[in-house]
């Protein structure tokens, strides 16, 4: 079972894991208000505890730059939300490197944490590091440095150097969370977006 949106938010906050500003919106008016208060660009996406892979059903629209874009995007997302009986979330668009930080309860060894680059790196190349939790700071550092794509986080070519310290903090917090919260089976913080300033959870799935 997927944990609900509000509970997920609360749980992440309890472990001081930074999350992007997000809100469930019912009308386009609410969406516009959110965008004005928090500034464009924004993201629209569907949410339902039953739907695990949102992008597979075109349930995420990113980089909505202005009110005009928002209106057309709203029409698209509302259609899907109605068809699939889901809610709609609006959140601020964050730019940076996509990262996946996860955890699971292994049947043999118990709590485990994972770190990898998002997108194809994790899905196709399986470039991901693991440790049994709880981990210490040194182990968090090792996990980040041992993935093949590590260079990307360290400012490869014209990419921005990523705030590794913030990523370590998220890893340590998640390690604590999976160790303490016995009811959790699996967690995906995917993506976490990291840039020069910091790192933020954009989407979180907690499976009980």
């Amino acid at each position: 079972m997927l944990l609900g949106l509000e509970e997920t938010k609360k749980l992440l906050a309890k472990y001081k894991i930074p999350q992007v500003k997000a809100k469930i919106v019912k009308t386009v008016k609410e969406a516009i208000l959110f965008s004005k208060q928090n500034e464009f660009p924004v993201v629209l996406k569907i949410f339902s505890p039953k739907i695990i892979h949102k992008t597979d059903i075109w349930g995420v629209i990113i980089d909505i730059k202005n009110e005009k874009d928002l209106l057309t995007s709203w029409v698209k997302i509302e259609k899907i939300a109605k068809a699939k009986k889901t809610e709609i979330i609006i959140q601020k668009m964050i730019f940076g490197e996509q990262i996946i930080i996860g955890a699971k309860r292994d049947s043999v060894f118990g709590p485990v944490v994972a770190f990898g680059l998002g997108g194809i790196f994790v899905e196709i190349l399986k470039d991901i590091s693991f440790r049994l939790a709880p981990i210490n700071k040194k182990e968090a550092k090792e996990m980040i440095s041992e993935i093949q794509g590590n260079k990307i986080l360290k400012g490869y070519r014209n990419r921005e150097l990523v705030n590794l310290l913030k990523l370590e903090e998220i890893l340590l917090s998640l390690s604590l969370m999976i160790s303490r919260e016995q009811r959790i089976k699996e967690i995906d913080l995917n993506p976490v977006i990291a840039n020069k300033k910091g790192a933020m959870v954009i989407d979180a799935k907690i499976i009980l």
Partner: protein
Amino acid sequence: MKLNYLFNPKTIAVIGATDKIGSVGRGLVKNLLSGKETSAKAGARRKIFLVNPNRKKVFGIKTLPSVLEIKGEIDLAVIAVPAQVVLKVTEQCIQKKVKSVIIISSGFAETGTKGAVLQDKVKQALTRANTAFVGPNCLGILRPCTGLNASFAPLTPSKGNIALISQSGALIDAIIDASNGKSWGFSAIISYGNEAGLNLVDFLNWAKNDSKTKVIALYLEGLKNGRQFFEAAKETAIKKPVLILKGGKNPNSKKAVSSHTGALAGESQIYSVAFKQAGLIEVSSIEELLDIAKVLSWHAKCKNGIAIITNGGGAGILAADYCYQFGINLPKPNQATLKKIENSKLMHPGYSKSNPMDIVGDALSNRYEIAISAIMAQKDINGLIVIQTPQTMTEPIKNAKIIIEAQKKWPQKPIVAAFIGGELTEPAVKILEKNHIPNYPDPRRAVIAIKSLISN
């Protein structure tokens, strides 16, 4: 220590003793009786009682119908009777206040629910009586230094400092055979079977504190309590090197998962992660397990910085490639080293003044000698691989002796030999290994071996 009776019993009862050809009981009795002589020679007299209500004599020795008929205390009872009789004889052992028990018999939890129920009854009885026990469904326990072979293995291995702990008994048989006639041996061999009583963690903790054990080699397929193993292994690896070979790694058993993390964190990955995190050395074959156990058994750890001396360019290049692959540094020979070699006037003018140092195919032993002594004296060289390919003029035995002398002179810089070949090199290899210089017939195996010595 509660396992003392198990590893060094003064009195043993074999329940299910027989001399029937092809039986487990026969192997067991033979092994225990042969060990009796060894232990007597070592000054530790051991009494062995044979129990079998259906046979009057076994190997000409009078048997007793039950363990209860034995006068005096029993330190260890080894049970090799059909599964359905195990509970009954176990209860007799408890009544007799036997101090430890090995249940060799199979037909328990490994066969299904019925067997599991029976196993549980046996376990309950022994646990209530607070009696340490091994098994069921195991090969037994061997402690070569005390002459104890409480197993039905085909041979008694020689003593040494490797503790082999294995979930598979058959693998132990094969490893014992492979070790036969070799210069390395075992401090203990433990087949832990179904782990109803003493489990892998108990034996790991025992080996950690055993003064006869320098290296621990594990074979396992699955763990009952992974976390407990992880913690024990972590503590053990601080004290002694622990090698691990894990069987059952194919991903077919993957369950349905719904998160990325769940999908990617397959069972075999997590095993490997846990081993690495605990500081264990994971190997991928029996050959590698024994290769590394051997080098750790004989050599001390060293820092990174290895030299290669070879009489064959190809073998040297291969070794250098493997060193690069495994992160081993090959420091260049410095001016002082090269001067020593050149001043000897013995070196071929075309030798490679580098690392690997190719002393050229026609090298006689004196070239090996001058190269080894010059290189070993160099400060940033912490270990050495000596490669020999058999050419018309090569002197394998002389080369072996030079290596042995060099190791005595620089005991803190481990030497690993790669005498490559077959019949021509075999006698020299025997001499090397008798003197505890490990040899590997392939440069790759030699490099992997020396890598396991390098501590950063």
